[in-house]
């Protein structure tokens, strides 16, 4: 199976919330069935939105070299650590492949930026960025990964804005995955009972709840008791 096809399958799998451990080659029929089983595409889409998604996914935009260069950059931006996977482990290149087609104003700056990067790489090392050694790649990245407020490297300006775009897309693509949630520590999006800021956090921040304010707030033990009031609006239950 070609890489392009594999990317598409991964993305379709993502939409459908696939639970299969590995994504192998699937016939079109199998894929179609899976999407039909999950109404709303698995994330509450209307029929018109499903059509839009299918259209976006059917489009080919980046070529193999571009996708591979994106993957190299993603992993320079977010390599793996002892506790967390890399950007490619989190499927960031596949996300970028989708989003530039979904938000077409991303297309040209990204494709042009990749071309600029290869141009710079050819100038320095007579090789495309993808084919450089890691040290060579980093030497270019170090010239475009930081803001240049005083305009000391005017020739790097297009690269700086391209790298900024890549960094933004990589961060968003990474931290909106399960892997990213775990790395960040985000623990919401689930039923729970909010009962105020933990005491040690209040202490750390040198703030506190005022007794008269907190007295008006919900006592979570009484949340199931049906509300009743007296005629002046005082809650009785």
């Amino acid at each position, binding site marked *: 199976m070609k890489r392009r096809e594999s990317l598409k399958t991964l993305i379709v799998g993502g939409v459908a919330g696939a639970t299969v451990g590995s994504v192998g080659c699937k016939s079109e029929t199998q894929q179609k069935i899976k999407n039909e089983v999950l109404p709303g595409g698995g994330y509450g889409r209307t029929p018109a939105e499903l059509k839009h998604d299918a259209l976006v996914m059917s489009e080919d935009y980046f070529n193999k070299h571009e996708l591979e260069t994106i993957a190299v950059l993603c992993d320079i931006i977010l390599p793996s650590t002892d506790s967390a996977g890399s950007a490619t482990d989190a499927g960031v290149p596949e996300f970028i492949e989708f989003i530039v087609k979904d938000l077409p104003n991303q297309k040209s700056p990204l494709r042009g930026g990749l071309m600029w990067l290869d141009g710079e790489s050819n100038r320095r090392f007579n090789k495309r960025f993808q084919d450089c050694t890691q040290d060579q790649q980093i030497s270019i990245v170090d010239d475009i990964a930081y803001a240049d407020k005083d305009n000391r490297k005017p020739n790097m300006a297009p690269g700086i804005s391209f790298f900024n775009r890549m960094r933004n897309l990589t961060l968003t693509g990474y931290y909106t995955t399960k892997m990213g949630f775990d790395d960040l520590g985000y623990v*919401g999006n689930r039923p729970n009972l909010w009962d105020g800021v933990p005491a040690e956090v209040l202490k*750390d921040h040198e703030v506190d709840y005022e007794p008269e304010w907190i007295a008006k707030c919900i006592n979570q033990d009484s949340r199931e008791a049906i509300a009743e009031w007296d005629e002046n609006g005082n809650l009785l239950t």
Partner: protein
Amino acid sequence: MQIIEQRKVYDAIIVGSGAGGGMAANILSENGLKVAVVEAGPFFDPKDPTTMTQLKYPWESPRRGASTKRAFGDFDMSWGDWEVDGEPYTTKEGTDFKWWRARMLGGRTNHWGRISLRFGPKDFKHKDVDGLGDNWPISYSDVKPYYDRLDKMIGVFGTNEGLPNDPDGFFLPPPKPRLHELYYIKGARKTGIPVIPSRLSILTKRINADRGVCFYCGQCNRSCNAYADFSAGSCLIFPAQKNGGQIDLYTNCMVKNVTTNKEGLATGVSYINKEDRREYELSGKVVVLGASACSSARILLNSKSSTHPNGLGNSSDHVGRYLHDSTGAGISVFVPDLMNRKIYNEDGVGGMHVYSPWWGDNSRLDFPRGYHIEVWGGMGMPSYGFGYNVEAMNEYVGGTTGGYGNKLRDDVKRFYGSVLGMAGRGEAIARYDNRCEIDPKVVDEYGIPVLRFDYKWSDYERLQAKHMIESFHEIAHNMGGIVLGDKPGKDKDYGLLAPGQIIHEVGTTRMGDNPKTSVTNKWQQLHDAKNVFIVDAGPFTSQADKNCTWTIMALSMRASENIVSELKKMNI
């Protein structure tokens, strides 16, 4: 084209199923009336797993929640936004007006902020205070009994504070403030601005056996499958149906005009079924428009006949005039003390836990009317846009701007939850010249002439926005924060957002005692046709520094009970 007539005659035809239409459907059907609800979008139930977005993770969307197809993001529960496919609107030169339309059962109530503020005594008679605009023909005491019932019927949390123009009510207890809200309280108090618990129609406590209680996912904009927040479908229409109310729902049906007889009275409505693209007629004794302020105006203006040559209810040429939206401006603030946060679940309810009602004394200010302050922030769920330019925050703490690798990972974590924001929502002055009217040259894909907007802010609103931004800067400073971005100057209207962006359009069919200068009377009944009523925000004589939904519903309840009583008395 042949127009297909339904034989059934309804007691009332309600156009629109949002806050106003939903309430009318509830009250009229519970009083035994046979009603038709005609909604321009599809059926929607927050419980339906096919359309539900609540508790979805960002990775369940290939675009991670980006706003490609929905203006407020993939998971926001509004079908339709400032643009609706096939349903354009136009603007006059020099007008930048944004018109949000939700095409679905329940309308915009499925995704709104649930901020549920009563108007105060001053808000109904503000001309008496500053000589601007017009007084309403009714006062707070006329509406208070309906607000009281509404609080208990729908459920709203808040606190009785005894404030003169932010009335007390029948509140459920509010949730405790989050950490960034404690910082806001500190900053606002030091600035001399009061802060109180917010007032949102979210059930922190059970109000009946049919609706659930909030489980703090912070996603009211996705519409709650437990019915623990207010949406017109889940809280008004479905319960009325369950109680045996005779409600026929006509979904995907776009009303074109109100039909009238020789006497000029309404006989029903004509609508396009979006599914077969044919025109149908419904007959009713009473027509109740709750299509939204601008849509109802459009329907009236498109209902021309020999007795109503200028459009129905428009002998005064006031339909569409006095259109006004809330003012709005806001800032984002970085608070260094909120860096390196200990992480815990602080999703809370879907919206702010605290807010500042208007505190100012206009006699000492250079603009009329006021605004309230909304607060946002915290350790929210990442979605598309998360992490954008996070390394640039180093500029404020003396670090290196830029980078990659482990340094970048650290930046994401160090700055997570350290930005909060303030937004002002205020009162504009209603003006005769600000209006929507029919564009004579343009129709939508159903062949219905569309609206054209002609709207300009005045210095009243610009100076109010200037005051907002200055207050926010002071609060930011007083909580140890750094304002992100430049302070908008005069060239940018001091940050005042375009009209329509706050999505509080009101005033297009304003109520008044004088038929020459108003469209409806104090019962929201057309001066020109006694069996046509308007229950959206069109009849608002003026907006307040409050959101309009709670008043739309209280007034719709009042108007609907009046319809029942007038029908009984055979007056209509």
